[in-house]
């Protein structure tokens, strides 16, 4: 390992990047742009979910009920249907996510304390909105009953309180209203920082595709130095994004940043080495840029999105996938970013993840160097 050689490699790579301004701009802004898009589209708070109501009862009470259900901005009354066919049609068209059906003797049964005959049909192809509609209809229905029946229940000698005996006190730490945006944005940083890794993979296969790699190999620069030299500019670009993203997150999305910025920066650098190591392996392996690209998608991009526990908890995955998740640098880094952003914890808690990241980084770079030797010996 020679610093001079690494510097030479880095300089060459930087010249290369600077010559092509358009690519430079894209490399610089793409991670932040992606994060922005994803933050916007993935973490929308559900509201105005369209539902249809079919009121078979047509009594003043049922009309009142139908009106109350859609009084808030969570559910939106798409239309009042008059036949079941209409309901079916709307569900199939996907115009409504749920249908509420009020039975013919709704008012009668409600007042005689026989129960609340409600039918909710949800569009099972979109269970997110459907489940949301069910929850909120149930909530409103309960409020409605409480208001209507308080008197009659008292007359029977019951207190309303006794009907809900358990006092459930729920508190959510670090994110009091459980807004997905608050933890997804820190989590997604690990995903968008996969982009510099893809760039590294491409620069390598670029040299191979153009046949310039042989020239580099003919210089006295060692393989390891060559790899590190090519990597450094992208670590630098990655770190620019690492700084930029929390600024966007804090200023635009109002996400708190409670931890130490220096720690975040340092661990991000470790993560970048690990993920760029994967990029190296891909780049060394593939002969053409197109193939390197396709492989990068498979090993960096898609797993980084789906398998690092950002969206879907790792503990719920099958055993083997949990092991795979452990081998992805993004898994550990997502824990770190969330930890630094929200609870604001430090290295005393995060050290195991930092060590894992470091270990993975060393391993990936070692594998890349090994392949590099073998393939082009």
């Amino acid at each position: 390992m020679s610093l001079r050689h690494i510097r030479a490699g880095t300089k060459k790579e930087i010249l290369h990047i600077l010559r092509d301004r358009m690519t430079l701009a894209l490399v610089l802004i793409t991670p932040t742009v992606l994060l922005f898009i994803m933050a916007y589209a993935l973490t929308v708070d559900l509201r105005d979910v369209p539902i249809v109501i079919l009121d078979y009862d047509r009594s003043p009470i049922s009309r009142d009920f139908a009106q109350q259900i859609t009084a808030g901005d969570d559910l939106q009354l798409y239309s009042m249907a008059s036949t079941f066919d209409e309901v079916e049609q709307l569900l199939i068209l996907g115009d409504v996510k749920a249908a509420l059906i009020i039975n013919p003797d709704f008012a009668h049964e409600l007042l005689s304390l026989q129960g609340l005959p409600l039918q909710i049909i949800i569009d099972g192809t979109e269970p997110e909105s459907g489940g949301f509609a069910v929850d909120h209809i149930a909530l409103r229905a309960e409020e409605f009953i409480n208001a209507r029946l308080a008197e009659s229940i008292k007359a029977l000698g019951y207190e309303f309180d006794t009907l809900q005996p358990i006092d459930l006190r729920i508190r959510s730490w670090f994110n009091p209203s459980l807004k997905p945006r608050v933890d997804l944005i820190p989590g997604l940083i690990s995903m968008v920082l996969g982009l510099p890794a893809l760039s590294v993979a491409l620069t390598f296969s670029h040299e191979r595709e153009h046949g310039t790699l042989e020239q580099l190999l003919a210089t006295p620069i060692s393989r390891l130095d060559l790899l590190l030299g090519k990597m450094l500019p992208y670590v630098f670009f990655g770190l620019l994004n690492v700084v930029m993203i929390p600024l966007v997150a804090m200023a635009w999305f109002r996400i708190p940043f409670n931890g130490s910025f220096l720690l975040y920066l340092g661990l991000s650098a470790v993560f970048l080495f690990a993920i760029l190591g994967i990029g190296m392996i891909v780049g060394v392996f593939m002969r053409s840029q197109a193939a390197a690209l396709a492989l990068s998608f498979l090993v960096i991009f898609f797993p980084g999105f789906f398998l690092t526990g950002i969206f879907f908890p790792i503990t719920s995955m099958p055993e083997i996938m949990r092991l795979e998740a452990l081998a992805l640098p993004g898994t550990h880094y997502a824990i770190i970013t969330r930890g630094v952003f929200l609870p604001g914890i430090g290295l005393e808690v995060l050290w195991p993840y930092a060590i894992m990241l470091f270990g993975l980084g060393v391993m990936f770079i070692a594998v890349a160097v090994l392949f590099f030797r073998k393939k082009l010996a």
Partner: protein
Amino acid sequence: MIRRIYAIIRKEFIHLRHDWWLPAFMLIGGAMELLLIGWATSRPITNLPLMVLDNDKSSASRQVVTALENTGTFYIEGQVNEFEEIENALEKGDIIAAIIFPQDYSQQVNSSNGKPTLAVILNGAESIPATAALRAVEGVARQLGEQITIQRLNISQEQLAGFSPSLRVWFNQALNEALYTTPAELSLMLEFTILLFAALTFTRERELGTLEGLLVMPFSSLEIIIGKSIPVILVGFLDFLLLLGITNLAFGVPVRGSFPLLLILVLIYILVELGKGLVISVISRTQHQAFLLVLIVGMVDFMFTGYAAPVESMPQFLQIIANVIPANHMLAITRGILLKGSGLSALGLHVIALLVLVIVIGTFSFRFVRRALD
């Protein structure tokens, strides 16, 4: 003309054979990836670590813990004696939720008008599992509450039943997650495959300096575009069939509607994405650029498909944009045909939108590419 187009197609396939990693990764790799991701993510959220601080240590509190375990949502990470341990575990992110029983829990349960308190702390740093945990806890609390009420008031189950609405779910009867996540993951993979393939067609030749060679040959720009497009369409179609086969065989996603209709619409969709990919391919100077542009365009599209958040809940101007995103209509069509068995009449608007888009984007990109080539 046909012979010349055929010649270009052959040239493209020779490329593919030469660089066989590319189609291998795109087709087989994509299919394997769908299998893995589908397998890992198409299940209910289960097995969330829960910590218990039981100051009561009674049969009543144990009953609650057992009920929570039986939901399948939780596994008990540990019984602790100090609140500090919960605090630490939450900060480390080791647990998603913790439940705390006060000392008088069983006493309150057994007294005739007591109000037993259950304190639950959620780890908001992982809001998605925390929300699932919240649902499960609320469900258990409701059940327990009913039991207690029934005992206290000595009334029947039916008399209480009035306070919960009945639920019937349509279409996706079992609420099987695979049925709604995998069609979306399928369309994501398909879109990226086509965009990437199309975007690389001209960029690659330009970067390697072979585009000029192609242009001086006796091909018209029309022939070049068609010849270059057909392999992309074929690969895209093959990819779709492969992915559909996997969703069907491995995840049991049915094809309830008309299969030929689906194939025709997929073909139209492939044409739209092809158009976008070709535009990217003529404006990018290097493959690197083309790739980054594909990523931005592809992700924007994906976000508008309603995979994670339904389009209806987005701000108004985003909803308007969503209408011109082909992937949005395609996902509605795929889900409609696969899961609901919808026909042309139900999908009419989406089909029309797709047709309009293919005409607009297709013409634009064709003219754009043609001008760039000439």
